């Protein structure tokens, strides 16, 4: 029995639309990646990684920005990981059926998608105002606050995935609870937790808004986290919003480096996840 023309037309329309929608999504993805690649690759040269951000009209590189970003990400990971893993452990283990854990998990997911500029404002009020100056530490703190919910979530999920039989085996051997968690559960979930850290790093590497009024920026080389610190996203923002062609080219180069870094991390995460599953 043939399908009536009207229903067939609706079906074909849906088919075409879905295909077009996917094509559109893919077109935009490739358009963005291609432009970043083309403009960024044209500006790639060794001086990028050897010289500092230049004043207008001069040439230079982005070494201080790369260093500043790396330092702030490192400090953010140092701040966010212990608290995040601990909180995730509570949500998945000790607090499994408590009210606190349910609420904390809920709140955590909201923090996960909270506007990062609000977090920047919060750290400005808390740290920059009271310290009296901008600093890389303030920037790292803001990044750490953005990182925290990601680590909590991935830790909680990966710990939950570990079957209870493993825990019961540990108890059966007479180990106290904290030992079971530390020596058995963490070991089993290690790669998943690491994956969470990598994903978090990929996310905070590209965050600009919270750094605008915490770490500010710095024209020169500086390793002093207690003062304004150059960082890649703010440099890209400043240079892209300027009229200078050399700055535009540096901004694209920075964008290329940032995108490559984030995409490589994402691929790494997928590979780790696949390896973990085997």
């Amino acid at each position, binding site marked *: 029995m043939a399908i009536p023309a009207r229903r067939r037309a609706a079906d074909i329309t849906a088919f075409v639309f879905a*295909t077009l929608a996917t094509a559109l*999504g893919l077109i935009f*993805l490739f358009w963005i990646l291609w432009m970043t690649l083309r403009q960024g690759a044209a500006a790639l040269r060794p001086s990028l990684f050897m010289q500092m951000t230049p004043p207008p009209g001069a040439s230079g590189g982005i070494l201080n920005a790369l260093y500043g970003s790396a330092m702030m990400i490192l400090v953010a990971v140092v701040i966010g990981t212990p608290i995040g893993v*601990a909180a995730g452990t*509570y949500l998945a283990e000790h607090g499994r059926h408590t009210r606190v854990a349910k609420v904390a998990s809920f709140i955590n997911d909201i923090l996960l*998608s909270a506007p*990062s500029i609000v977090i920047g404002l919060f750290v400005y009020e808390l740290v920059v105002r009271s310290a009296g100056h901008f600093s890389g530490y303030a920037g790292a703190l803001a990044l750490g606050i953005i990182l925290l919910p990601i680590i909590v979530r991935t830790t909680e999920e990966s710990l939950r995935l570990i079957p209870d039989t493993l825990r019961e085996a540990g108890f059966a051997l007479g180990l106290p609870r904290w030992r079971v968690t530390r020596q058995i559960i963490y070991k089993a979930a290690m790669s998943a937790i690491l994956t969470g850290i990598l994903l978090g790093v990929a996310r905070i590497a590209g*965050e*600009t808004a919270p750094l605008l009024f915490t770490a500010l920026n710095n024209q020169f080389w500086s390793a002093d986290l207690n003062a304004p610190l150059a960082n890649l996203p703010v440099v890209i923002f400043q240079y892209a919003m300027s009229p200078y062609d050399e700055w535009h080219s540096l901004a694209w180069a920075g964008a290329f480096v940032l995108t490559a870094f984030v995409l490589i991390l994402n691929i790494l995460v997928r590979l780790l996840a696949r390896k973990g599953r085997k």
Partner: protein
Amino acid sequence: MNATAITNEMIEAPAPRKSGAGADRAFEWITAGAAWFVLLLLAGIALSMAWGGRLAFETFGWRFITSSDWDAVNGKFGALVPIYGTLATSAIALIIAVPISIGIALFLTDIAPRWTRGPIAIAIELLAAIPSIIYGMWGLFVFAPFMATHVEPWLADHLGNKALVGPLFSGPPIGIGMLTAGIVLGIMVVPFIAAVAREVFSAVPPPLRESAIALGATRWEVLRSVTLPYTRSAVIGAIFLGLGRALGETMAVTFVLGNAHDLSLSLLMPSNSIAAAIANEFTEADTDLYRSSLIALGFLLFVVTLIVLTIAKLLLMRVNRQMGRTS
């Protein structure tokens, strides 16, 4: 103490319970403390924003939200333009993103050959991984000129004179404005909605789909009558999640929205959003009232995003229960 032989129990006895219990309790306290920290963090952010914004709220009251006067010189701040810009660009973003995301989900679950599903899904997810500042740069240097040359003149010419939609498409086609910002936001939001939609579409129990197909339903009819109703909560939850993201987005919007404190009906005109206004003006707010007004804007944004994300989470939690997950 008697001189009994060493029994097996003594050899195999675990560490004394006391220290085990002590360390256990310490561990539990530490982890519980960390969980409380998450709660306190949210409360801290909300309170700090409310506290910082109190001067503005006290000075302007309700007029803060209804007035479009943003006058830093005379100390008059009304948030209507940034609020309107945020809502308008997010609305445009959703209008674009929702059909595209559902289309992508349908494609990935029903139409695409099996071997292509993985790679295409990964490609769509990569859209979410690209940092928003890249979207902003691409928006300003590539997409806005494209809109200014190819799309906006056509819109202004053909729709600018029509009765109802005319005012929506008037003004010089410069490429930056609400429409461009809305489209860029929409592209950013697509992967979030599409990922959830795809997951729940493929989780529809096969018996439901198969019985519909057995009754002679076409692909579209299965989607409309079986899949969408079944996954309604999840899809709406995903849409709210996308909305939450769009509302708070700063960098992509700052590049292409135009930073104009002007209330305009036309989508081709520049405007301002809460996040862009804060990003542009915070470091130079030189009076307490100015600073407080910006923080008050941040508070409003935080509260609205909180509400939207809570709705999203509640809807998605319900779906997880439906599907038998415990989280």
